[in-house]
C-alpha cells in the first residue's frame, strides 16, 4: 500500500519540479514583461500545488498533512492574486504589451522592457524624467507600495485601462 503511495507522490513531485523548471526557463526566454509574467505565474502556482500534493501523501495521518493543506490553500489564493496585481500595476504604469508583428522585426531584448509612454497626470513626462516627483506619481511595481499620493486623477486611469 505505501509503495503505491510512494510512487504516486514521486510522480507528483517530479511533475511539480518540472513545472517550476519550465517556469524558470519561460522567464528566461520570453521577450516581453507580460509573457514572462504569464510563464512565471502559471507554473508557480501549478508547480507548488503539485509538490504540496506529493508531500501530502507522504505525511500519513499526523498533523502534517493538515498544515500542508493550509499552506496549499494560502498559496492557491495569494500567488495568482500577486501576479494579477503585478501585471495590473505594470499596465497602469503604461507599459504597453508589444505584439511581434506590430514592428515586424524581432524585439531586441532590452528595448521591449522599456515603458513606451509614461501616462502621468498630464501624460507628458517621458521615461527619462523618473526623478522623485515621477516616482511619487507612478504606482510602484510591487502592490506593497501601491499607496502612492493622490495627484493622479481617476479619469486618467480609466482611459489607460480602456486604451491598452
Amino acid at each position, binding site marked *: 500500500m505505501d509503495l503505491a503511495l510512494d510512487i504516486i507522490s514521486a510522480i507528483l513531485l517530479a511533475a511539480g519540479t518540472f513545472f517550476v523548471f519550465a517556469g524558470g526557463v519561460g522567464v528566461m526566454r520570453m521577450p516581453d514583461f507580460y509573457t514572462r509574467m504569464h510563464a512565471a505565474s502559471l507554473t508557480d502556482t501549478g508547480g507548488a500545488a503539485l509538490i504540496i500534493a506529493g508531500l501530502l501523501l507522504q505525511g500519513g495521518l499526523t498533523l502534517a498533512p493538515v498544515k500542508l493543506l493550509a499552506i496549499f490553500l494560502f498559496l492557491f489564493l495569494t500567488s495568482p*492574486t500577486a501576479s494579477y*496585481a503585478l501585471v495590473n500595476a505594470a499596465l497602469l504604469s503604461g507599459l504597453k504589451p508589444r505584439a511581434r508583428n506590430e514592428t515586424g522585426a524581432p524585439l531586441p531584448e532590452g528595448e521591449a522592457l522599456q515603458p513606451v509612454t509614461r501616462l502621468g497626470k498630464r501624460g507628458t513626462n517621458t521615461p527619462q524624467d523618473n526623478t522623485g516627483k515621477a516616482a511619487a506619481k507612478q504606482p510602484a511595481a510591487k502592490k506593497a507600495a501601491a*499607496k502612492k499620493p*493622490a495627484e493622479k486623477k481617476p479619469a486618467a486611469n480609466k482611459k489607460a485601462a480602456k486604451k491598452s
Partner: protein
Amino acid sequence: MMTIVFSLFLLTMLVLVAVAILRTENLFTAVMLSGIFSLLMAANFFVLDAADVALTEAVIGAGISTVLFLGALALTSEKDRSPPVGSWVPLISASALGAVIIYAVMQAPRLGDPNAVVHNHVAPWYLEKTPELIDVPNVVTAVLASFRGYDTLGEVFVVFIACMGVMSLLGRVRPRKDSIKLTEYEERSRNLRHHLIPRIVGKMLVPFIVLFGLYVQFHGDFGPGGGFQAGGLIAAGIILYSLLEGDWRGRELVPEWFTSLMVAMGALLYAGVGVVCMLKGGHFLNYSVLFEDPIKGQHIGILLVELGVGLTVTGVMITVFHAFARRGVR
C-alpha cells in the same frame, strides 16, 4: 551529508544575491533583492536547525523591512544615481576586513563537530535544566525569556526606541483632519479602487494572518514562536489591510493612540513583571517567586513577558509603517 549540500547551495545563492544588490542601479530592484536575501537567510537558518530564528528572519527581515524600504522609496528617489565610484578606500578596507576574518576562521571549529567548545560549556546546562526548572519544551523561548530575560528586556526597549525615533523624526506632520473632505479621501484610496481582486483576496486573508500571529504568540513555549515573530506577523496583517484599503482606513482600524498605548504598555508590562518579582523578594525578572510553585511562576512569567514583547513589536511596526505612509499624503 544532505545538510552540507543544502547549505552549500543556499549560501552560494546568498552571496550571488548580495553581489546583485551591490550592482543594481534601480533601488526598487535592490529592495526586492534584499527581501530575497532575507528569505534565503531564513532558509539557511532553518537548514542549520534554528527554527525560531528562521521564522523571525522571514517575518521581520523579508516582510517588515521590505515594506519599510518600499515606504521610504515611495518618498525618495527611485534611481541610485551614484556613479560607480572606483575609489580605492572602500575596496582596501573591505578586503582587509575579509582577509583578517579568513585568517582567524582557519582555526574555527568545523561546522557541526560535536566537541567544539561552544557545545560543551553553557549549552548542555540549558538543555538539561530547562525541563527541570522551567519545564517548557522550546528551550530557545526558555533561555530568551527567563535565563537571559534581561537581554530581551533590553531588546524590547531597542524596539521601543525605534518607535521613539520615527515618531520624533516623522511624527511632526499633523494630518490636517478638518481640511480633508470625504471626496479627497475617496480619491486618495482610488489608487486601489480598480485593484478589486487584491482587495477582496487581501481582506479575506487579513483575519487569518492575525490569527496565525496570535497562534505564534501563545504557542511560543511549545514550538518555534514568541513575541517578536508574533508582533511581526500581526503587524504584517494590519499593514496589508492598510495597503489595500489606503492608510487612512488602516488608521481608523488601529488608531494612533491605540498603537502608542500598545508600544508603551508592552514595555511597561515586561518591566512590570520584573518589578513585581523584586517586590516579592526575588531578584529582578526571577519568575520563580511569583507563585508558590516556581515552575508555575516561570510559566506565567514567560507568558506575560512574551505578551509584552508581542504588544510592543506590533505597536512599533504599525506606528512606523503609518509614519511613512502618512508622510506622503501631506
